[in-house]
């Protein structure tokens, strides 16, 4: 508390340099928001008006009609549902599996640990296109009659969940292993001597202590998986099965006839990530830097 008030006191003298800095930062911030504000403005105007008066013009009327139209015409709720069906299991599974790996490599001193962690971390850094061709073939090969709608791993939510989990667990295992390493060894040591099983150590002692890191990763993963474009583009063939961000690409050609409607559709797609970000800003930023600070 004392440092905060001290800093607040430091702030009070208004120097010209400070004002200049504020002007500069405010200008930059506005420039940064400009494309989004522009999209917002375009989305709030009817097509007829903009085509008659041009896009850079004063509005006669502003409304949210484009948003409701885009939402209804393109059956967006359905695509949001697809995303939910992919993202929720993918985030939970990724956290579960990567925390187990992290527990294994950080709390025990097996010889493979370092190598294992290297394999996971390096895998996450690979560009997705490096693996897509064989993956695509593999997904076409695997028959899952009755389990997925398509009867294959290809063109199914399950297929997307699996690749998200496999890919993202690299990053999460790295971050969680670092985190778990910072927990005092006496904790698990004592429990182990008392006869607790390895599973108990993981589930009842280590995992609850990892809550802050898990929350940060969950936020990050939700946004990443929600925003995925590439996997769905290649591994889903039926437009109906696509998650929202990839579906948008199809929708803009199929349903939307005017740019104002496209703008509204794109902005609608961004709303869930914006909500997650604004509500969980701290977790999101700390998640990004959890992995980066360790370098």
């Amino acid at each position, binding site marked *: 508390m004392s440092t905060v008030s001290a800093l607040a006191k430091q702030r009070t003298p208004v120097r010209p340099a400070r004002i200049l800095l504020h002007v500069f*930062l405010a200008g930059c911030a506005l420039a940064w928001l400009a494309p989004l504000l522009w999209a917002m403005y375009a989305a709030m105007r009817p097509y007829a008006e903009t085509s008659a008066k041009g896009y850079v013009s004063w509005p006669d009327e502003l409304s949210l009609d484009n948003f409701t139209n885009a939402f209804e015409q393109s059956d967006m709720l359905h695509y949001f549902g697809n995303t939910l069906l992919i993202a929720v299991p993918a985030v939970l599974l990724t956290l579960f599996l990567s925390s187990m790996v992290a527990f294994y490599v950080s709390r025990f001193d097996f010889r493979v640990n370092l190598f294992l962690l290297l*394999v996971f971390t390096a895998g996450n850094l690979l560009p997705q296109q490096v693996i897509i061709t064989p993956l695509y073939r593999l997904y076409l090969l695997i028959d899952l009659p009755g389990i997925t709608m398509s009867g294959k791993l290809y063109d199914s939510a399950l297929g997307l969940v699996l690749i998200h989990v496999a890919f993202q667990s690299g990053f999460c295992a790295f971050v969680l292993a670092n985190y778990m390493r910072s927990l005092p060894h006496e904790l698990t040591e004592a429990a182990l001597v008392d006869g607790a099983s390895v599973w108990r150590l993981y589930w009842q002692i280590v995992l609850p202590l990892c809550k802050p890191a898990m929350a940060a990763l969950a936020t990050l993963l939700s946004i990443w998986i929600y925003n995925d474009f590439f996997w769905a583009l290649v591994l889903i063939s039926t437009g109906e099965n696509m998650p929202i961000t990839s579906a948008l690409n199809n929708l803009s050609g199929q349903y939307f006839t005017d740019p104002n409607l496209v703008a509204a559709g794109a902005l609608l797609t961004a709303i869930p990530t914006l909500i997650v970000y604004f509500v969980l800003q701290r977790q999101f930023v700390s998640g990004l*830097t959890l992995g980066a600070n360790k*370098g």
Partner: protein
Amino acid sequence: MTVTAKTGTGTGATSTPGTAAVPPPGHPDNVTSGQAERLRAPLGHRRLLTRRDRLTLGLMAGVPTILHVLLVWLTALASIALAFTTWDGIGFDAIKWVGLQNFRELFTSNPQFWPAVEHNVTWFVVLILIPTPLGLFLAVQLDKNIRFSKVYQTAFFLPVVLSMAVIGFVWQLVYNPDTGLINSLIGANKPGHYIDWIGDPDLNLWSVLIAASWRHTGYMMILYLAGLKGVDPALREASSLDGANEWQTFKNVIFPTLRPTNTVVLVVTIIEALRAFDLVFVFNKGAEGTELLSILVTNNIIGESSRIGYGSAIAVVLLVISLAVIIPYLIATFRKERRA
């Protein structure tokens, strides 16, 4: 801390008596597990593990590893194998070994390959020269504990939260020759005066790169802000006591301490440049002027032509470049961690 201690004892009290602290007797690798070389705390665990614990641990590490290795590393290896073959994707007996033919064709006669490499390099150079220093500059300014810092931060960081697909659509509204913001403002939206930001092969790469830089700046800013938080305030104080001005302090004191962050930033930027895909795909599907290696690979799958060997050869080029960055970085990172 008290909570954790309670959990610890609670676990001990209620655990099944049968598994209590009985080391599997006479297990060879318990005795000779290399205690001589490494006397680290976790080593003691091994002696306490029951057979069931070992099984549990095996499963805990094994299941995720199998999934990861199968879907990521085995497919990467398969890419390498397929790069030396031709295959139309129908039936395994159609796979033909052709040696280096795909690579030869790629390097000598594919008109899109070298431009794609060049564009990937340009992508990296632009990202490291413009948004990265800008992100650092903004981070340094926002680190001064000024008013509205959070508001500015949010404005710069917002693009990082959006999907590349959405960013692509938003920037199309800016670039559209007829209805876009730029042409409308400069009066280039009339027939005969059009500036086609997305269609012109001399312009479109730069247009996409502006959108990519728009996003990258916020990302870099956050990484540097985190790095700056780790700088010891005493350093700053000492520097100002020595009479250094703001720029001197930054150049001689703060920036050198940001070395770990700089490494991360460099690696992240290279990886982003190699991964670049979504934005270009939404813009113009990587048509003339914006080819990228990632786009060429993808075109072999979702395009009409299914030339799997050829696409894999491009993927291998991408893989080799990526690993050349990833492996040294990870080795350095992990070595540091071991020492710590």
